[in-house]
């Protein structure tokens, strides 16, 4: 893999940038792999990378029905944090956070991970309680998170309305200072490039249409629209919004529903907000990208939808919330809205692990908040696929918890969709 | 101590005259609204305070219920999305098994008892008189104010005089009825009435608004 650096840019500029290598190869698929990963989103690509890097397994194909990294990884609001409530999730997301902190260097790809702080504003006593609970739990779990008063918050974010006159006046906030955001596409491309360099096959425009399952209920490979059957010893599905389809192909149901989740951006403006602010109560969140657009997460629609678009009232409510929180944005203009398909679970936590079909594994259910989990998810799923069973990080996230009742309810921490 | 008030039970339900013999200190839901009046108003509002509101529920497939209600009200219960007026009663369809009947406040108890005397079988009568109020909106721009407030199609071709719908009103709900070409009636929940009043005044400001107290 060619090393990227400022120097390499200078060098290539001398030859008019005509000699840059492809960032990833476009191989034709083999007949058989050790492991097939379905879905070249952030999580699928990260899984492939860690399989190759950590576990030395490189006879791996990632099958993607469209171009790689065009699903939710291409359409999320890029918030990264690890201040989750329960031990199991805090451990998973914090593991992810640690990987984020070295990711650009590890991948030799600048993913622009920016630890500019993520603030959760509190508008009611209930909010205060929930955030105090989070902050205190996180302290014990070893995850940074702290409370601020409304006055402290106002100093740190001058454009936020912390006045008593607001409909839901801000009473305080929690902030995780190591949290922030990252350049979503770069994360996927960085993983793709690094995985490809380690020998993983990234097969784009290869749609999985069925699972090959033998009489002993063991998976033997997948059927694809473009390349027919491709065999593998193990199959890991990381298809995010389409995970329900994966299950259907394999003949089982999951505690997952796919809903539209929307987001929008303003036109680019001069620096306005250099942190991430979210309000569960007023129900909106916002950050400003390095290009200058305000990136705003909207809500989730209440119905199943695979159209990558949702309903307008969701956008309306979101903008109302943003104007309520940041009155100075009223004359700023909204440029574009879009949607993704998020796979939600009843407890707002992912499902990682085995399935009713032997050697078929699932990593899904990251719902509205899996971007931050990309490195950790890939790491934990790679371990699961390599060993044939989940490791310590992934184990609590088995699908079985919905049968036993051992849910890990992160609705409070997940709050607004992000 | 005075005599113990017995609970009147009719059809295994407790009934109670909820209209005080002295109504002089009562406050309607909109009592605290501050109305700003414009001199060249084209939107007018007034509250029909202290009306009696009775919710009647029963199955439309229950002939005895339908007939009994008709007998008491002097009119058939209106079918979907419609209303009828009968003497002092205005009867509005709210859902396939729910009607709202309004009348002068003091008459609610009599209606409740008459219904319970007449009806048999499965039904519900609930007094809601304190929980909601009637607001009448009129004037040449009343329709525009409603355009700003409800997403229901209130064009006269779709929403003729007498039609009733339950729908969203800004960020709350309302039961809306057309009284005339330019006259509408809203059933507003008590706790939302300040909000509704503020919303209407704000929406009507550009047309000139006046309160017909």
């Amino acid at each position, binding site marked *: 893999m060619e090393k990227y650096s400022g120097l390499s840019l200078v060098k290539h500029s001398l030859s008019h940038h005509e000699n840059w290598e492809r960032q990833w190869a476009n191989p034709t698929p083999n007949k058989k792999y050790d492991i097939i990963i379905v879905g070249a989103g952030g999580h699928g690509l990260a899984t492939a990378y860690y399989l190759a890097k950590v576990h030395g397994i490189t006879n791996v194909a990632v099958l993607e029905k469209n171009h790689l990294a065009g699903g939710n990884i291409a359409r999320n609001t890029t918030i990264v944090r690890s201040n989750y409530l329960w031990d199991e999730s805090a451990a998973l997301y914090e593991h992810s956070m640690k990987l984020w902190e070295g990711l650009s260097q590890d991948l030799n790809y600048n993913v622009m991970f920016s630890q500019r702080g993520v603030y959760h504003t509190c508008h009611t006593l209930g909010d205060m309680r929930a955030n105090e609970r989070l902050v205190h739990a996180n302290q014990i779990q070893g995850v940074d998170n702290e409370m601020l008063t409304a006055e402290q918050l106002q100093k740190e974010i001058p454009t936020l309305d912390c006045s008593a006159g607001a409909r839901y006046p801000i009473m305080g906030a929690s902030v995780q200072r190591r949290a922030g955001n990252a350049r979503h596409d770069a994360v996927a491309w960085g993983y793709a490039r690094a995985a490809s360099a380690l020998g993983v096959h990234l097969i784009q425009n290869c749609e999985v249409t069925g699972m090959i399952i033998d009489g002993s209920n063991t998976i033997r490979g997948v059927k694809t629209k473009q390349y027919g059957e491709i065999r593998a010893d193990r199959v890991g599905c990381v298809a995010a919004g389409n995970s329900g389809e994966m299950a259907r192909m394999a003949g089982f149901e999951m505690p997952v529903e796919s809903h539209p989740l929307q987001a929008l951006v303003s036109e680019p403006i001069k620096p306005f907000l250099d942190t991430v602010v979210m309000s569960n109560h007023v129900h909106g969140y916002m950050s400003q990208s390095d290009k200058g657009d305000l990136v705003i997460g909207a809500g989730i629609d209440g119905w199943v939808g695979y159209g990558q678009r949702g309903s307008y009232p969701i956008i309306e409510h979101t903008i109302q919330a943003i104007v309520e929180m940041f009155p100075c944005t009223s004359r700023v203009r909204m440029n574009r809205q879009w949607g993704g398909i998020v796979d939600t679970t009843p407890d707002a936590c992912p499902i990682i692990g085995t399935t009713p079909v032997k050697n078929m594994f699932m990593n899904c259910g990251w719902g509205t908040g899996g971007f931050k989990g990309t490195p950790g998810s890939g790491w934990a799923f790679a371990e699961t696929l390599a060993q044939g069973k989940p490791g310590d990080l992934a184990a609590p996230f088995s699908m079985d918890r919905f049968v*036993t009742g051992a849910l890990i309810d992160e609705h409070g921490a997940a709050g607004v969709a992000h | 101590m005075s005599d113990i008030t017995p609970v009147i039970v009719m059809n295994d339900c407790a009934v109670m005259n909820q209209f005080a013999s002295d109504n002089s200190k009562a406050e309607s839901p909109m009592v605290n609204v501050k109305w700003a009046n414009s001199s060249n108003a084209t939107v007018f509002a007034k509250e029909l305070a202290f009306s009696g509101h009775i919710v009647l529920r029963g199955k439309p497939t229950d002939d005895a219920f339908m007939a009994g209600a008709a007998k008491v009200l002097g009119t058939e219960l209106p079918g979907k999305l419609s209303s009828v007026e009968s003497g002092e009663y205005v009867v509005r369809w709210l859902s396939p098994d729910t009607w709202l009947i309004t009348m002068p406040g003091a008459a609610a108890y009599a209606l409740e008892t008459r219904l319970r005397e007449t009806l048999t079988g499965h039904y519900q009568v609930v007094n809601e008189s304190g929980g909601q109020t009637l607001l009448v909106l009129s004037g040449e721009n009343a329709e525009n104010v409603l355009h700003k407030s409800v997403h229901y199609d209130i064009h006269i071709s779709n929403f003729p005089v007498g039609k009733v719908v339950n729908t969203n009103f800004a960020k709350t709900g309302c039961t809306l009825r057309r009284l005339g070409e330019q006259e509408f009636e809203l059933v507003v929940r008590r706790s939302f009435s300040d909000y509704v009043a503020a919303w209407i005044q704000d929406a009507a400001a550009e047309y000139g608004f006046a309160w017909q107290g």
Partner: protein
Amino acid sequence: MAQVNRTQAGGRINRGKPLSFTYNGKQFTGYEGDTLASALLANGVDIIGRSFKYSRPRGIVAAGAEEPNAVMQVGATEATQVPNVRATQQALFNGLTCSAVAGWPNVDFDLMSYVGKIGGKMMPPGFYYKTFMGPAGMWPIYEKYIRKAAGLGKAPKEKDVDIYDAMNRHADVVVVGSGPAGLAAARAAASSGARVILADEQEEFGGSLLHSSETINGKPAAEWVTEVVAELAGNKNVVLLPRATVNGLHDHNFLTIHERLTDHLGDRAPTVDGVQMARHRMHKVRAHCVILATGAQERPIVFANNDVPGVMGASAVATYINRYGVVPGKTLVVGTANDDGYDAAIAWKKAGRDVAAIVDSRPGADGDRVEEARQLGIKIIFGSVVYDAKGQTRVKAAKVGAVSPDGKKLIGDKLDISCDTIATSGGWSPVVHLSCHSGTRPQWDDKIIGFVPGDCYENRLYVGGISGNYELGACLTDGQAAGENAAKSAGFTPDTPRANYQTKAVKVSAPMALFVAPHEKPFSRAPKQFVDYQNDVTAGGIELAVREGFESIEHVKRYTALGFGTDQGKLGNINGMAIAAQVRGATIPEVGTTVFRPNYTPIAFGAIAGRNAGELFDPKRYTAMQSWHEANGALFEDVGQWKRPWYYPKPGETMQQSLDRECLATRESVGILDASTLGKIDIQGKDAREFLGRVYTNAWAKLAVGKCRYGLMCGEDGMVFDDGVTSCLAENHFLMTTTSGGAAHVLEWLELYHQTEWPELEVFMTSVTDHWATMTISGPNSRKLLEQVSEGIDLDKDAFKFMDWRQGKVDGIPSRVFRISFTGELSYEINVPANYGLQVWKKLMEVGAQYNITPYGTETMHILRAEKGFIIAGQDTDGSVTPQDLGMSWAVSMNKPFSFIGKRGMNRQDPTRANRKELVGIKTKDPKVVLVEGAAAVNERNYKQGSNVVQGHITSSYYSAVLGRSIALGMIKDGFNRMGETVYYPTMDGSVIEAEICSPVFYDPKGDRQNV
């Protein structure tokens, strides 16, 4: 300053109405009818901005929504600043103040351009992914500078002084676009009596007819426009929306139309008769049929240095001359691949200025306009292209070369033609954007060399330019047919006879597909050939992206930022796709488009929020006693949408002092609480009891008339979600109460089960939350107080027992009184119809004065109930707690015949395992220390950070005045078995609070006080 580029006559401007405006601090004059762009061009302003990445000077290139360069900061005061206003869409008004959004120290002389020139070579697409990675930890510093450089205009620093509005509308037919196709459609549809909305983003209706020289029925097209618009305005079924952009065409034919009500009038919306007008209005429209008549936008031809000011679209040039009376230069060269480019030259020549040449890539052409140009003596060079421009801050010359018939290679002769303006036309791109908003993909049409709308199931019609139909006569007749069909589909019958439209046929020669003019050098080495001006995306950049593996057009978009700008690539996208196709050796349809999404053009946040801002952001719900609470100094707590009194501080009191006072007064004498917000549901029917037994965890079969009972509600997973007291009013009549925040949810829950699972149960439920005003009097003197104000109720302790209810009068008002207690004291909950709430409350206060009756708020209520160990659903529970976890097995009746909601769930493996977290009391070792709610417990003072260390958390915590110490409730793993054990609560300052696990009932454990 003189308007150097203004023609002597012509155009749709009002020369009698000069308007002055300020650009970059300098004052200029334009006319009514100008856009900001036409006024700037009239004044000879060349540079209106600097490019984003390379800081190259940029000028106006287009005349409409597709303009990428002329985005301005507009606003005369801080509060009225608007970033990124497209000058081509901003009507000029007197006093308009604007400036360029880029350029330091100013746009004309920009130091950053040197950085751009030198650094530009090192800034290919995606360069930032390849650098700024080391040394580790430096990224935040690089990022700071990158952020500083980013962004176009700036947000105001002050709150908006304007207001916004929205209207909901319904229409049988919505016509988008008011060119010939749209007007003909609207007219035909309206003739049928259908409700029609016609929206156009421009200041005036007419679309392309406003600058056309064609005729309709023998009259200049613009005259026909005036007539039709007047006719439509006179039809009361038609809503005309000028200055109204249809920004989104959503599912099921829902449109969002953004009307700029006052942007053409001034810096901020005017006040009329003392009433502040709204600045913008959103129309939210549900349409039976949508007719898209959005026309087409001209596609420029990409060539080297095509961003030098003076390079423009040919149709834009024609528009500026014909519509605004502005010739934006002295000497023109046209580069075209079709007849339309000739329009610019013809208009230019007729305006009396020089046309140096028309450079036509086609080997020859014989259309009417080609002939007209010939006749005007304009030099036409066939088989050639403009492949490069000379000049820095304004075009100096066009480099022209002969081109191969396929347009791919330069062949043979080259020459430089001096000029200051180069206008190009590469053909037309139908404005398909709206047709794609609900998921439909556009389809490539080789005949028209452009994408047209794809098929979808919705009732939509496409007419005129959008469907690739550029011929005026056909636009009119097709528009008419579409209008008729749309009306018919909505059940209307169009007028007969139909209108008859006569136009002069224009002979058009076949256009050629040319997207980028070949250069002597390849894309990578040629001077920059800009595709997307706003994001500085070049042909070379697209080629590089493809070379690096970003082959999908979506990858190209994301790697190069093609189409990411405020113009959303209206001008550049198709050229970008064509270049990507060329580089990949694929066809344009193979490459496809990126996704068009709302908004068509950007909209102010304020306009989307509408009037749901400030006070009206969310309803505030009040009880009947609100005015009293306000008058008596209450502070309020937000509970759902309710405003509830939180506590009532006396002057000079701290919060804790108020709470101590309120608590003690209640425990010692009598306190009063406004409990009206509790959800209340009236339940009637012979199966009401059975129904209660199914939805509550405990038993209801034996609850006698006159009695009340506490109940817990669980989900099917066995987790508690609400609780409350339900009273048996009569054998088949119950009054259920719910939490204030849960009321709506509970009613929906009950209806869900009744309607879907147990419709056979004869039960009806109706919310009576708002009907009853509820006031709780609580404390040892509450009975005495009640005695003095009530009639008809035997208050004797044995006649009216704890958990009984009685009917009577309070202050003469019919009421129901419930002897239930959330404080542990002797308590009565008085319910009166809400119209009498305030009256009764006042009476209680008046009579209670002798007992020092003390109003208390939610906080005191919480303290008093916590002293008794009573839970609050939603505070002491979080959706993961069973009744058993709460120590409330007593409220679960496992033996009921029907398997109640929650039973199976709470009997699953995990809810029944040992070592679950359980609700216990927590007493700090130091009684003065009050734990923070949310504090987490650990087993050792010197705990080790990590997983499985947290033992539980504090759910409720207060200082108890009556106990003289702090008290808390909290979840603790295996808590019931750990009474008396010590746990530790680390605080955020590093100290650790030691506490003991105890019973959750801190006060009056036997319950004597409520039973007196």
